[in-house]
């Protein structure tokens, strides 16, 4: 208890102060617990944060209050019920031996704006400009085209691996559209659309998949493991859910700087079972970090259906378990996703808190090119979701109703997209692969002696046995 309550320290002025009561603690007792430290001089130019000594009234939140022991009264009498100031706060007693239900009576409702035929179901959504809406649609179509063609390219043996975002185009593009370029994105691997929206080119995508010299990751990662510092999109790692603590850490960094930006991290239903996910969500809440935790609940983790993944009502209910605001949205509804992310971003930044969004959707493609999902789920199911709940078609219908898109433009758009993608692949295929030296760079900031030795040794070997290394660029 002492550990929890006796935290004290200087507060940074940009940090939102929440004055909340801890049982019988009064504000005056908290104020007196703080010493007035001399402020750091702004002239030294080193610290962007001034000392909070001139904001004494903003002191005292649960995190930073140091409590004098005698101020804690142990029992409050409120009529016939009693309460106790346990560690963590006042709790009322109950005489009933009753357990909380494992599941809510009804599943948490799902926020939806557009129906399958593109008609608005509500006026409670965030309006989008025509330009943004059209760009969203074009990018969704481009994403579909990229996925189709790259998948084919893998089947033809031109690239070794690929993951598609089939069925999740709205999640990708609409969430990206609701963010600003300053927001940090920590993706899992099914969010290439976010990068596409931010301006990562087709050629860049293709180069990464082919691992050639044009790849800004220098041929170091598997296809579809994109990363671009310029676009604030952090390199995809194959490890599941490790990006969630990273996002919380980055949010912590943004909070320290007081920047008008948040982080967003994407993960699937499967990823929520990991230890990293739990710990990161808990931590985001405790730290009050401005992070959007976006769960793409698409029903499948490779061959594991959600019924084998967890027994809770999806992910949205976990928000409350951690003290995080959460919402469930229709992941195939671009407007719903856009609105939710837009509002979440606002909350995250202005109130410095994490927000959990669960987007219900369906993984219309296979897990990856190494998977054949017809082995564990009926083809009719896949086909139904792909056709009836296609997020791209639904958004197009809405655009047409708005008068912002014509049916005829579609063929032209898709043809053009197809040509561009095919061309990007052709170019990427012909581009040479990185040279031998790139094996050893970027392990550290500068190669240490052992790596330089190893490079030398490798070069000698390749030179000596050139016939055995025909494709090797030296």
């Amino acid at each position, binding site marked *: 208890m002492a550990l929890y309550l006796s935290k004290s320290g200087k507060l940074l002025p940009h940090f939102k102060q929440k004055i909340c009561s801890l049982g019988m603690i009064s504000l005056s007792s908290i104020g007196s617990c703080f010493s007035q430290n001399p402020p750091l001089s702004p002239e030294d130019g080193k610290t962007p944060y001034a000392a909070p000594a001139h904001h004494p009234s903003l002191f005292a939140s649960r995190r930073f209050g140091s409590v004098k022991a005698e101020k804690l009264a142990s029992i409050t009498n409120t009529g016939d019920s009693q309460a106790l100031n346990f560690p963590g706060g006042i709790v009322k007693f109950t005489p009933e031996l009753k357990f909380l239900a494992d599941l809510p009576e009804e599943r948490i409702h799902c926020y939806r704006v557009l129906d399958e035929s593109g008609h608005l179901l509500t006026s409670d959504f965030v309006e989008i400009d025509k330009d943004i809406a059209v760009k969203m649609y074009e990018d969704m179509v481009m994403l579909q085209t990229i996925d189709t063609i790259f998948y084919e390219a893998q089947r033809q043996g031109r690239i070794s691996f690929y993951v598609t975002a089939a069925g999740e185009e709205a999640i990708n593009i609409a969430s990206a559209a609701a963010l600003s370029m300053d927001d940090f994105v920590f993706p899992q691997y099914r969010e290439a659309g976010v990068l596409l929206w931010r301006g990562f080119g087709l050629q860049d995508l293709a180069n990464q998949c082919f691992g050639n010299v044009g790849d800004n990751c220098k041929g170091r990662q598997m296809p579809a493991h994109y990363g671009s510092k310029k676009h604030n999109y952090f390199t995809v790692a194959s490890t599941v859910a490790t990006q969630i603590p990273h996002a919380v850490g980055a949010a*912590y960094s943004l909070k*320290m700087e007081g920047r008008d930006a948040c982080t967003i991290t994407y993960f699937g239903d499967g990823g929520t079972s990991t230890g990293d996910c739990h*710990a990161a969500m808990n931590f985001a809440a405790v730290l009050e970090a401005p992070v959007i935790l976006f769960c793409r609940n698409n029903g499948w983790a490779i061959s594991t259906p959600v019924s084998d993944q967890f027994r809770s009502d999806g992910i949205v209910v976990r928000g409350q378990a951690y003290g995080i605001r959460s919402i469930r949205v229709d992941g195939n509804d671009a407007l719903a996703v856009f609105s939710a992310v837009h509002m979440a971003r606002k909350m995250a930044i202005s109130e410095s808190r994490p927000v959990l969004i669960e987007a219900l959707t369906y993984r219309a493609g296979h897990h990856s090119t190494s998977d054949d999902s017809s082995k564990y789920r009926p083809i009719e199911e896949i086909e139904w979701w792909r056709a009836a709940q296609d997020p791209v078609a639904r958004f197009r219908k809405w655009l047409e109703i708005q008068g912002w898109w014509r049916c005829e433009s579609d063929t032209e758009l898709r043809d053009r997209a197809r040509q561009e993608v095919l061309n990007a692949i052709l170019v990427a295929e012909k581009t040479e692969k990185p040279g031998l030296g790139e094996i050893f760079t970027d392990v550290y900031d500068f190669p240490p002696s052992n790596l330089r030795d190893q490079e030398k040794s490798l070069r000698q070997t390749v030179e000596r046995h050139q016939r055995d290394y025909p494709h090797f660029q030296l």
Partner: protein
Amino acid sequence: MAAALLHGVGSTTPLSSVNYNNSRRSLPGYVVHERKRASFLIQCYGSLLPGSKIGINRAAKLSTNAVTTKQDNVTASTTSKPGHELLLFEALREGLEEEMERDPRVCVMGEDVGHYGGSYKVTKGLADKYGDLRVLDTPIAENSFTGMGIGAAMTGLRPIVEGMNMGFLLLAFNQISNNCGMLHYTSGGQFEIPIVIRGPGGVGRQLGAEHSQRLESYFQSIPGIQMVACSTPYNAKGLMKAAIRSDNPVILFEHVLLYNLKERVPDEEYVLNLEEAEMVRMGEHVTILTYSRMRYHVMQAAKTLVNKGYDPEVIDIRSLKPFDLHTIGNSVKKTHRVVIVEECMRTGGIGASLTASINEHFHDYLDAPIVCLSSQDVPTPYAGTLEDWTVVQPAQIVATVEQLCQ
């Protein structure tokens, strides 16, 4: 083959040595030893290559004198300002505090590091001074807060992650191996991870098997990270500062039993080289390589050996990844006999790697097989007597040297 490699290792560029010489003269009051290795120092340090602005600053602050035998300390203190006495944990804290003062991006995260001051008091008082956000108390989730540190590092902060005990960082192995060590590489150099992961490890006094882990064994294979082990207040402070300033992920191994060592450290600011080994005692007969707590067992054995007429050269390797093969090599060429004394277990420890490395590079210079003294491949037992027997004791070291030098 060995000769060719050595040649590569020893070469330097003239420009680098000029930088270094300038920097040596700029440090007041230090006893500067004329060492041929000086110019190589820059080569292996890497960041002092021309064109690197960080390198020039670092050169100015490098301590040229890493020798910390008693005599040298005395000379250093009389020719320079007297310095001040510190316990090792205070030295770590002083280094940490100086870096936090110097760079507002430096922050600390770990369990009980805030108002509690850390389980070994390394962060005591820092939360009061810098606030709860910069000295962050975390929930018990090593994988999470190590991941957090990595995320924060990628976006511009310079976090120091404290493992309450190094053994707990086994929970963070995934983040350390797959992300910390890798993301700089897999992102094509776009994202840097200037994180420092530190904590107490090693065999203590009856702490039980789970709290007596030697994590350097497990981490040494991870590409992309650097590992250093401190053993004296002087090198603890210097290595802490160097680790924080490094743009690579660095794991700083402290030892549970060494936190209360007292030593006089200079008043002036100094930063040590992460890749450099420390010559503890010069000698002619045998090279004894060690690090962390075993250094003290070795020095105790050295006293006995000297009385018996032997002249051991003792090197605290300090840099566990990469090894300072230059210092080690020069010593091997001189003495032709090597004993490695470590606390790691026999299988797969630092000693095992070091043995392989020396054999590979300096085989021609060895007059006898390398002897590696390490702990047995058992979990550390609780009982005091049993625990003592699993750790290498001075008597063993003396016996080994005697046998080797026959």
